[in-house]
């Protein structure tokens, strides 16, 4: 019998803590597939964020450090400067990267640190129970924007993939989603590219995932996928913002 689908070698044989239908699991798997296919398991080091993905170290057979909230790009910088030949990646959510850690991500990116960042944008703070994030959509209800995000009060959502594409140190910035096979395949390509760039010593690469949060959005999984398709993609268009063509 031929195996056509199996757990990536770099993934631990474990159930994750993520809620039913959450897209973190897909993003994890795409990272794992890239590591497997590039054959870099023994020299890859991960930086976990604070947020839902804080437990990522439990799901990968990789050395991991759990950095303070938002500081992963600085911690990654420290590791990479000691081991330029290792593959170092951060996996961060929108509160971690786009709010408290905005300075760290911008400076690491602008320095052109030879790192890979996987950025999960699910438009709210998942771990703490669904508060407003920098990426929360206008009008979106969260536990700290109960009347809907109002541009006069909370300003506009942050567009990270576009922002990152402006820095000279960034070689690759893409926004992807994982709500159907087509987007998943495109995501996989982006993640692999982001790791390839690092292996080739090109500089900083970031992949922003439009992700769902059925639990805190108060939606079924299907409804959450429709929310990404109908609302998030409108605010945050998918695509490669830098480093796509070659």
């Amino acid at each position: 019998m031929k195996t056509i689908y199996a757990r990536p070698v770099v993934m631990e044989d474990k159930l994750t803590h993520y809620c039913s239908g959450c897209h973190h699991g897909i993003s994890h798997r795409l990272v794992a597939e890239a590591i497997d296919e590039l054959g870099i398991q023994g020299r890859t080091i991960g930086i976990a964020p604070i947020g839902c993905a804080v437990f990522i170290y439990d799901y990968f057979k990789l050395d991991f450090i759990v950095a303070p909230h938002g500081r992963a790009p600085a911690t990654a910088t420290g590791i990479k400067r000691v081991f330029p030949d290792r593959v170092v990646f951060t996996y961060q959510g929108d509160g971690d990267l786009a709010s408290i850690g905005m300075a760290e991500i911008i400076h690491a990116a602008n320095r052109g640190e030879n790192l890979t960042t996987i950025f999960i944008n699910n438009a709210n703070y998942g771990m703490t129970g669904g508060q407003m994030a920098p990426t929360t959509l206008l009008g979106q209800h969260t536990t700290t924007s109960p009347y809907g995000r109002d541009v006069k009060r909370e300003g506009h959502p942050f567009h990270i993939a576009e922002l990152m594409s402006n820095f000279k140190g960034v070689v690759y910035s893409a926004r992807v989603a994982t709500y159907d096979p087509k987007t998943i395949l495109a995501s996989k390509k982006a993640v692999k590219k982001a790791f390839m760039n690092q292996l080739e010593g090109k500089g900083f690469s970031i992949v922003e995932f439009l992700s769902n949060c059925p639990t805190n959005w108060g939606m079924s999984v299907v409804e959450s996928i429709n929310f990404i398709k109908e609302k998030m993609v409108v605010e945050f268009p998918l695509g490669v913002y830098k480093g796509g063509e070659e």
Partner: protein
Amino acid sequence: MSERILFKGVEAVAEAAIKAGCRYFFGYPITPQNETPEYMSKRLPQVGGVFLQGESETASINMVMGASAAGARVMTTTSSPGFSLMVEGISYLSGMELPCVIANIMRGGPGLGNIAPAQSDYFQATKGGGHGDYRNIVFGPSTVKELVDLTVLAFDLADKYRNPVVLLADGALGQMMEPVVLPEEVKLENLPNKPWALTGALGREKNLAMAFEMVPEKLEEINWRLQKKYDQIIKEEVRWEEYYTDDAEYIIVAFGTSGRITKSAVKALREEKVPVGLVRPITLWPFPYGILVELVPQVEAFLVVEMSAGQMVEDVRLAVGDRRPVFFYGRPGGMVPTPKDIVQKVKETMSLLDF
């Protein structure tokens, strides 16, 4: 044989770190310690090391965290407001049991304060500063020579105990020039092996560096293990200097720059046949409570001299209790006491006691 070189404190600490095998420095400009990162930015590339100016003290301490997790000897230096920004990272480093050396060249506070020398970060350095039950080894050097020696020791103890070590100096010591003999440079291949480091899990189980445990029973266990380590440090690493204590009936306790100034005051008082002595804590944590307890029977009173409104005095009172009066003389806000001030304070308090 090494020769004596005239060195400024904030540059001596940098060269001593390099001699100790430190090849990574991450820091942010703040007065009065700017010469340290400046020196490192020039020297580290010459010895195959890396200097990187972080975008903030917050980023810098987290870069230190990464380099330490990778197994390197790494350092940062800062001054009071910058140290405040670093304490988040220091709490994590302590919880992760990652070695590193952090020099705080203290200046006047609170807030922006000023850039004059002070000792008002004693509480912050010795009692925690950040959140959680953690301790850092804290040294209070009083001469440039001692700063050099303690910098080397700081790296060794950081690795030995897998713990951050703080060099708590002040702007006066930092800017002072004194002759020092630099130690022999350690060979990098002789540095301690770090099997816990994150190097890529090639042919071994993965290594994790985290100050995180969701199960309270397990986190309690981790905390007790840390406390056991701190107890061992208390047992083995307390250091202090005694000056004219043998026959002293009056003891002054002072560290760092005020310890050094107090030495001159004790010398002057001894010339007048006043039986005073000095206990100068070298480790501020662990604090040398023991020697103060031992001295209580022979002593009429204690005086604590600090460049603050009174912080270490609480540790001296903890040692002495109600058995003897503990007086305090302090100059906060960047003011430095003179030997004459201290002599006068000793005489004043002695007259209260019918000495």
